[in-house]
């Protein structure tokens, strides 16, 4: 029998050292019994599409739909892709949803650890973003990425706004409008046109309108999107994440377009 502590709980390997005879055989610290079958994420499986976010007068607003796709199959239609972290931060995720759920657990643990200190310090959006970018960069450096693009929004009690991006490569950046996935192609130009230079004057109603209009364009053009979405905001007062809602869309025009509706020659 092998009683060596390094092998506790590991499957027995009779080929190597069946009786653990003296002298104690070499056991490298990093022996991985299942080394050959450990799998790293090579591609995302259940995925969320675009997340959009803008700065506006009172804080930061973020929007994402409720769809998690399995390839081209609209698999889960009630998925919350925007979460609150701590008291003044929201995180929106696109990419692999299981990796995102893992990130949620990591963030929950981080926030609990921080609360437990009871030292009067708070994790703000800047800190959450730094933590996420270090985590994602570390994982990409192990060639074992967490397959997500994340938007982190926040607003301090003093009203200082924060909005930044981080992805599976650890790439980070900040701007007054951000979008992930197809949103970067389709929504970002619309957001920039509506927001750039007006970050400090946009009202809440205007901000909601800008995001909803962009979501509608995405819904019309992105096949992996859903007309059911949530809008989240962070202001100096804290976080609010809306219930799921949808918008009116018009598909009547499709009837008249050849190859789009039902045609008889």
């Amino acid at each position, binding site marked *: 029998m092998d009683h060596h502590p390094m092998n506790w709980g590991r499957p027995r390997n009779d080929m190597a050292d069946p009786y653990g005879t003296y002298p104690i055989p070499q056991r490298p610290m990093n022996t991985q019994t299942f080394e050959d079958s450990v799998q790293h*994420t090579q591609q995302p499986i259940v995925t969320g599409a675009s997340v959009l976010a803008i700065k506006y007068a009172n804080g930061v607003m973020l929007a994402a739909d409720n769809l998690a796709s399995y390839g081209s199959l609209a698999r889960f239609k009630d998925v919350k892709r925007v979460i609150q972290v701590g008291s003044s931060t929201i995180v929106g995720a696109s990419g692999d949803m299981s990796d995102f759920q893992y990130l949620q657990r990591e963030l929950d643990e981080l926030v609990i650890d921080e609360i437990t200190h009871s030292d009067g310090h708070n994790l703000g959006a800047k800190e959450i973003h730094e933590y996420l*970018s270090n985590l994602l*960069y570390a994982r*990409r450096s192990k060639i074992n990425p967490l397959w997500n693009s994340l938007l982190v929004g926040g607003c301090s009690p003093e009203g200082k706004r924060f909005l930044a991006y981080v992805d599976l*490569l*650890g*790439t980070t950046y900040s*701007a007054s409008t951000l979008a992930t996935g197809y949103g970067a192609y389709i929504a970002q130009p619309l957001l920039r046109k509506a927001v750039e230079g007006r970050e400090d004057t946009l009202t809440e109603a205007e901000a909601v309108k800008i995001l909803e209009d962009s979501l509608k364009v995405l819904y019309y053009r992105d096949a992996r999107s859903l007309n059911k979405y949530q809008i989240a905001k962070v202001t100096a007062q804290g976080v609010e994440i809306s219930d799921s809602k949808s918008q009116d869309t018009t598909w009547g025009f499709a009837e008249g377009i050849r190859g789009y509706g039902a045609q008889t020659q």
Partner: protein
Amino acid sequence: MSDTVTLAGPQQRQFNPYSDNGGTILAVAGANFSVIAGDTRQSEGYNIQTRYAPKVFRLTDKAVLAVNGFAADGNMFVKKVKQRLEWYRHAHSKDMPLRSIARLIQSMLYGRRFFPYYVYNILGGIEEDGSGAVYSFDPVGSYERETCRAAGAAQSLVQPFLDNQIYFKNQVAAPGTSHPSHLPLSDVLALVIDSFTSATERHIEVGDGLEIFIVLARGAPIHGLEAIQGIQEMTSNAEGERVFIVRRVLKYD
């Protein structure tokens, strides 16, 4: 190709841990100053990720580092260099000399020889003898001291221009005269700004904003710097070298 070949084994798709975030950096050394500049656009493919992501960083009062390539590696690398410089400051109660920072950077880059930081570094500043210096590096740490260097997306546009205007390559001095070995600061600043406006015209990954750092040797004349519109001083210790920053807009398209 027959079907048997494609069916032979599972197709492996490898995760690519690198990306290229565009942009260009540039540095020029003068007799008693150094100029280090970079644009502020960060892009991936045809997407502009942000119009303001700094690529040039003040390390000490006499050293400025510009990083270009894969932005995530660049930011991590700068973070680690700054950390090592802080440790040096705590151990020796002084800032690390420029040539030592250059060697430190080569060690840190070569330390990752087999999983490199995909980053081109240009280090500018003032040497201990008071001369302006520029060190340029490749991603795995090969480095040399030079008078001027451009790197990044528009390197192939900017470097020949600098060779011509700063090294006077392909120019013949008028009879009885010779080319200057160092240009005055005002000429260098004009060349740097022209380099970036031209690169912005001809390269899609360059634009949005320009940040120019100027490092002046201890006791060097101010060269009429105070007249430059929007100039800001970033010096931490009044006695030693002085660091300034100048910001300019570049075209958004």
